[in-house]
């Protein structure tokens, strides 16, 4: 049975079946294995994306024009910076500087927050133009849209002031001809379905990482870490690096590649 009760600041916890050095190496091995499972999780989505991009290159290219690479680049810079501060936090923990750990981790978490805010703006823009699953079709006349795939046309909806260019309802039966013109094409659905899955799952992992690092930060504020014990900081930073790494693959794949 692990004895969590006595945690002396600076001292490693003492589950009775581990020595402290062994516990550190075991914990790291466990975290690396867990990261491997996360990579395999995302690999399914990357595989599906690669396959369908190869099959539908034209449509995927057109669909990707709806993404703003500048926002994506901003997010990339934010995450890389946050990975840097996380690594600095590990270094600080190894020197026993809990105050610095706390500040660096707070900054890292804040960067995660910025990432999510930018993501929110990206998603809400797409929602406003109807490129989001579940957006119902407004009442439109046939031919009311000028060029349903560019940014030129779009139907105004009375409530909410959405300038819908597309709609993506769950049920496509019983739609008028005008509404059908607005429907997201099936290949666009494929692209954006994968886009939302991939970036959504990634955003979920950003949130998890933020929670994890906040918890570690809380312990730093209690002077928990020292040269003898900094395992949680290292493991938390490892997780955060994975979150960053996945985005580094997502960004070029979705935003940059033609």
């Amino acid at each position, binding site marked *: *049975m*692990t004895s969590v009760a006595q945690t002396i600041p600076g001292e490693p916890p003492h*589950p*009775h*079946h*581990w020595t402290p050095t*062994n516990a550190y*190496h*075991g914990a790291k*091995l*466990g975290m690396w*294995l*867990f990261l*491997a*499972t*996360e990579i*395999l*999780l*995302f*690999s*399914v*989505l990357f*595989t*599906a994306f690669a*396959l*369908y991009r190869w*099959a*539908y290159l034209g449509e995927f290219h057109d669909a990707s024009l709806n993404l703003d690479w500048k926002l994506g680049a901003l997010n990339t810079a934010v995450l890389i910076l946050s990975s840097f501060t996380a690594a600095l936090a590990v270094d600080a923990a190894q020197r026993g500087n809990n105050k610095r750990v706390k500040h660096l981790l707070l900054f890292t978490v804040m960067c995660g927050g910025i990432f999510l805010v930018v993501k929110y703006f990206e998603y809400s823009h797409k929602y406003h133009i109807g490129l989001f*699953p*579940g957006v119902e079709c407004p009442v439109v006349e046939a031919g009311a849209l000028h060029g349903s795939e560019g940014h030129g046309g779009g139907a105004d909806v009375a409530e909410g002031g959405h300038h819908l260019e597309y709609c993506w309802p*769950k049920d496509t039966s019983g739609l008028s001809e005008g509404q059908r013109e607005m429907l997201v094409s*099936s*290949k666009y*659905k*494929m692209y954006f*379905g*994968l886009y939302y*899955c991939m970036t959504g799952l990634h955003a979920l992992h950003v949130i998890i990482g933020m929670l994890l690092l906040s918890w570690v930060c809380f312990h730093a504020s209690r002077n928990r870490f020292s040269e003898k014990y900094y395992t949680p900081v290292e493991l938390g930073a490892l997780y955060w690096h994975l979150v960053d790494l996945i985005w580094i693959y997502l960004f070029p794949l979705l935003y940059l590649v033609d």
Partner: protein
Amino acid sequence: MTVHSDVAHNNKNYLNHETTLWSWLSTVDHKRIGLMYLFTITGFFIVGGLAALTMRMELASSGADFLSPEQYNVLFTLHGAIMIFLFIVPGIPATMGNFLLPLMIGAKDVAFPRLNLLSFYIYVVGAFMALYALLNPIDTGWTFYAPYSMQTQSAVILMTGAAFVLGFSSILTGLNFVVTVHRLRCPGMTWDRLPVFVWGLYATAVIQTLATPVIGMTLLLLIVERWLGVGIFNPAMGGDPVLFEHLFWFYSHPVVYIMVLPAFGVVGEIIPVFSRKPLFGYKMVCYASVAIALVGFLVWAHHMLVAGISDTSAIYFSVITFGVAIPTAIKVFNWVSTMYKGSISFDTPMLYAMGFVFLFMIAGTTGIYLATLAVDVFYHDTYFVVAHFHYTIQGGAVIGLIAALHFWFPKMTGKMYNEPLAKIAFVLVFVGFNLTFLPQFVLGMEGMPRRYFDYLPEFEGLHRLSSYGAVVNGFGYTFALLNLLGAWIFSKKQAPANPYNSLSLEWNTQSPPIHENFEETPSVTDYPYAYGTPVEGGGH
């Protein structure tokens, strides 16, 4: 390594260490967690078994008897999903693995005991989700193939969600075991002194950790597909149902090795003990476990040979599947060679172990039939496949679990079971199982399709035979389990620490073990199969 048959016995053990309900629910003791898994999966084994018996009752005569076709579809889906996700995948690792792994390597517990408890509770949550899904039971087959799984009105999201949750339990257990084997071996316990059961658990844990995330994501995509209509697997929207099959089988082939590798390990423990001879080719058996785990990742599309994959792919997967049989064959040869010129005693665990070898040979060779492209064209989706996988899973993994339950029963409970009754149960299980599934090979060869609610009258004789076998089989399992349960509750005979004079570390502590496993941390100087060698440390 010396066998301590004089292990001190005191009345304190892990069972009476603390006895409140909360002490069990909040336990981080791997032995208690193993027991909790054992009772839960046994419950699901019974549920899945009842589904099977119901189907076999319907199939005993041709023509509709008491089930509708829709009900039949539900039954074979539930039988598969429950037996696979709720019984045999947790199976030996979660029960016997949890109980034995730390003991066998001389450790006090697994690497992350609290994570172990979390794994159990995640399993319980998944189990409740699956039970809740029974209110609108799915009829897609346990394989959830698109496009039907996207169209059926049954509770697909709930059931695949349950499987997703159960997958987390499997991943965390696998991760726990890998770190345990790497980091918690006692002094002297080098990799080449580990029991083969530990090697089997290690190889299994690697597969669990790496393969399960893939099915998790695949089922999540299926849920997204049903919920949002994205089109990934929907041909009407440019998607590909075969992509689902690829992603599904990428996990679901390795999962069969998760089921059977621990059983190989169990057999590798039992046969040397009851032959009083060292395990033949110990190192090759260990390497073979790892080889099976690795090569098992490369053969998934042999489940899809007639699904429309290219000829090149089909040829590749067929050839590699032949290859994955080789390490298993090595093990079979080694087990049999262990018995050769040994001093064999036919205790119940040995009967089950020998039964395993026989049944798995049939399983493996019929697998080669199915891997042969020209043959698979005829046998795919027939009863031949059904018989093959029941021989591997039931004749292999389940028999392995029952063997393990009998072999380690004294260690887990501190009691001895009734040996004659256990032998009778074995005969019922063995005869019943073969009577159920041997006719199914013939049915398959004659063209009887699988997952069919009804059939042509000419198949009735073999179906009737199979149904009789199912009853005997079910009765046999019931008898075996009741015998063990009865012994645990009513037997007064205290089991010795080492009733079979076995050399591995778990026998070097009292039966049942104390809470901390060992009085002092043990150390070893040799591998655990030096039976019959006159000089201590004679080695291998």
